[in-house]
């Protein structure tokens, strides 16, 4: 009896009183429980948003998904038609934008990882690239409008592709730098010890070792620009007629969706949903492929 009292006296603070200690403990447990439930709830809400968006796209878009969507060009309301020219236009602009942006992004990423360690210029480039990564895409549209549309007297597919290239660059820069930094120094030293010049070490050793990571960056960049609308509004404008000329306005899937979704014609709205379904699942598939590429490496 007296022994129990002695040990109770040794305990510090509120734990001296069993009832207070129990109440405190259950209060802490209750708070923990409430927070845990709220966190699970938050995650469920987040997942529900994704599910709701995907469900809406399938529900509204799947019915209109005929072969004619891929074989016919856009037509005036009430006369059917498909999305052939927006799809082709999107493919062309995304391809050219990626083709321009990837080499530049790759070189900048190489500079940051291999040449710029600790230099002021390197830090400035890294900062500016990260700002570009998150800069509002509509501003890039305005910028390219002033640069490549207004001086040349017209909207054009190539201006759209350039705007997309500006978005591609920082994405490729980020992944390239990150992936090159992951390569073990021993690998570089081995190459240099064999007498390889630095550029050969980078191109033949580092690029090969970081191949999957760089490819992931390019895929993510493609996924990002394929769904961009705002930068194309002021550059390639959109075109309801069939045109693949790079110096003329060019249709694109996101801009066509924008025009059709806001229209008062039911068949246009339905086509907008079909386009939305195509572009979302295309973009999400690219994202998943990009993740798989990276995971296979590990």
């Amino acid at each position, binding site marked *: 009896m007296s022994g129990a009292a002695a040990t109770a006296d040794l305990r510090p603070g509120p734990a001296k009183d069993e009832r207070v200690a129990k109440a405190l403990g259950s209060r*802490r*447990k209750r*708070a*923990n429980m409430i*927070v*845990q439930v709220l*966190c699970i709830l*938050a*995650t469920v809400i*987040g*997942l529900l948003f*994704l599910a709701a968006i995907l469900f*809406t*796209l399938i529900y509204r878009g799947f019915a209109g998904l005929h072969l004619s969507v891929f074989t016919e060009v856009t037509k005036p309301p009430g006369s059917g038609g498909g999305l052939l020219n927006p799809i082709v236009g999107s493919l062309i602009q995304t391809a050219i934008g990626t083709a321009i942006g990837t080499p*530049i992004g790759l*070189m*900048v990423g190489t*500079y*940051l990882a291999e*040449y710029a360690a600790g230099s002021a*210029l390197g830090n400035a*480039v890294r*900062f*500016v690239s*990260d*700002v*570009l990564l998150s*800069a*509002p895409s*509509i*501003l890039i549209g*305005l*910028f390219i409008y*002033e640069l490549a549309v*207004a001086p040349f007297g017209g909207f054009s597919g190539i201006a759209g592709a350039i705007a997309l290239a*500006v978005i591609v*660059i920082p994405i490729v*820069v980020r992944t390239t730098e990150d992936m090159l930094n992951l390569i073990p120094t021993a690998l570089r030293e081995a190459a240099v010890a064999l007498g390889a*010049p*630095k*550029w050969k070490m980078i191109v033949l050793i580092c690029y090969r070792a970081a191949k999957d990571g760089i490819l992931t960056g390019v895929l993510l960049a493609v996924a990002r620009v394929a*769904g*961009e*609308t*705002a930068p194309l*509004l*002021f550059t390639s404008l959109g075109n309801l007629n069939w045109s693949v000329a790079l110096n003329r306005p060019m249709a694109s899937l996101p801009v066509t*969706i*924008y025009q059709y*979704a*806001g229209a008062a014609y039911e068949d246009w709205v339905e086509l*907008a949903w079909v386009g*939305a379904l195509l*572009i*979302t699942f295309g*973009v*999400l598939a690219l*994202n*998943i492929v990009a*993740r798989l590429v990276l995971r296979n490496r590990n």
Partner: protein
Amino acid sequence: MSQSIAAPSTTAHRAGSNIGDAIFGFAVRAAGVFVLLLLGSLIVTLFIGGLPAFKAFGLGFVFSTDWDPVQDVFGAAVPIYGTLVTSVLALIMAVPLAFGIAFYLTELAPMWIRRPVGTAIELLAAVPSIIYGMWGFFVIVPLMSQYIQPSVIDTFDGIPVLQDFFAGPPFGTGIFTAALILAVMIIPFIAATMRDVFLTVPAVFKESAYGVGCTTWEVMRAIVLPYTRASVVGGIMLGLGRALGETMAVTFVIGNTNRIATSIFGPGNTIASIVALEFPESQAGSLKLSSLLALGFILFVISFIVLAISRLLLRPRSK
């Protein structure tokens, strides 16, 4: 024998590799400078384009609520107000949810669930913004106008101050709907950043706290959050930067009215939405186009400040 093969190649090879190195080094450095010039010319281009508007209206451009293409009088106050209000409202809604998701994914969820759920949340960030706009316009707007707005307006009717805050006809569109869509869009960015920084907390710190009997929530509050405070704020700023410049999603649902709404259900506009909508109706070289470019410049300055702070806070610990 083998030595005699290796020996002669060195001098000739060395000269060639020096040139190769010089060219390659110059090329990648030039690419780096090119990116600097790219952002520099973006700023300069927007500023020069907006110069006629800045000259015509002076500093009053920022404070004027006029937008009258007929009289050729333009002001930026309403879109700036709309941009800030929608973004801040979006943050208020998004941050708790994003924190909950990040907490769940780093401390609570069973291991096998973390990867798929994390990927699903990241996919939410990959959905193009035009899709959010359509979804908001065709799904959320009807929900808001039929159920949520009428009941909220009725609830607060008759209570001073609050009744003005939630007043107005239930159109479904408006500032609150735009903020809600923005919140959904930025949740994955904030959640992913928070998750990544939570994972940087050394396991020893957390284990010590668990060792003295802390609950999961106490470990989060007393160990993880203080350790990652700066980066968490950086992640939130990153989300804010995204919300400020979002165009397509907002254009669909904000109602596009150039008036400062006192009710959060009232219609409004943002810099990005007014640029997207008014641009096609602007003549090249007109004062209106210049005003839109000036708005673009202002948006760039705001986003640049927010993103710069975010970068500063998200810098890896130097230790």
